[in-house]
């Protein structure tokens, strides 16, 4: 488990309601309404906590008819705390984790449900969002300007600025009005 995942898991566990949810799920799998009844909490509060537990990998869910049934993820709790502490990360791994975290933070701040809220003014952040948009392009495929505009417009209305920026930052190449994703991306 990476240090980030460990911290996320422990932060998630340091809450009485979530601990009670896990204590209930250890006995049997359950759906939201039943957990709410057992723990005397509002179903919306239970859903809120289950989402956090699921994101931290502590529980899993499966759909059964009309219900989402939640189960404890036993594997994650089988590893001892000592093993987790002993796990070593190289400086390169830590650096990568820091970069990934920064990247995720920028993406979370600037995108909402897949739409770009606004174009960052800072170049470093702008580059991250341009790279994120670039994921919508297929490698080695040729695109007309209209096709590029349509793809970018799915993210933000100002597709002209973003298209020019993607060329300027060497994310896309443009030759004779044909665009291609640069292979190293």
């Amino acid at each position, binding site marked *: 488990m990476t240090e980030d995942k460990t911290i996320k898991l422990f932060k998630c566990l*340091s*809450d*009485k*309601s979530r601990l009670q949810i896990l204590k209930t799920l250890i006995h049997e799998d359950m759906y939201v309404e039943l957990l709410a009844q057992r723990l005397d909490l509002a179903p*919306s*509060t239970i*859903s*809120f*906590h*289950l*989402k*956090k537990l699921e994101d931290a990998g502590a529980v899993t869910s499966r759909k059964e008819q009309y219900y989402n049934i939640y189960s404890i993820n036993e594997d994650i709790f089988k590893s001892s705390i000592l093993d987790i502490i002993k796990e070593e990360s190289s400086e390169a791994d830590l650096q990568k984790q820091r970069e990934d975290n920064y990247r995720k933070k920028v993406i979370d701040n600037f995108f*909402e*449900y897949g739409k770009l809220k606004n174009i960052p003014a800072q170049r470093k952040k702008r580059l991250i969002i341009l790279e994120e948009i670039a994921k919508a392009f297929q490698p080695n495929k040729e695109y007309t300007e209209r096709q590029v505009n349509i793809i970018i417009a799915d993210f933000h209305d100002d597709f002209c600025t973003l298209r020019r920026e993607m060329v300027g930052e060497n994310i896309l190449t443009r030759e004779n009005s044909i665009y291609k994703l640069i292979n190293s991306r």
Partner: protein
Amino acid sequence: MREIEEKYINYIDEKIAEHNSISEQHKIDDRKDESDLEKIKVNIYEIFRTLFLSDIKQLEGKNIGEKADINIYGGFLLRFDTIPTNWKMSLDKAIEHGDTTKQVIEEHKMSVAKGLKDRFIEMFEEHGRH
């Protein structure tokens, strides 16, 4: 401030005190997220409190007699439609994208606004009957 307005402000203040106390209790109980949700509710009560006081202030000093009731009633009632508009949009988006965390937050905000609206109508209608 007239008696009915004071009564409504007192009601909001009681709700603020009640949810602040629940929030504190959750914090002591190591339920930080639930404590934060209570704080969100407090924040919404405070927003409507400020708006209500501002609506009253705007009418103060104006010689409108009995029309004060109609102005306050109609004007402030409109706030319950305009203020939660963005919350509703945000809630719909959250439901569409399965964003449970945001969904719960928006639902809490809207439930506070609904509670305040119901109480407001109830109090002013009762006041009108006397």
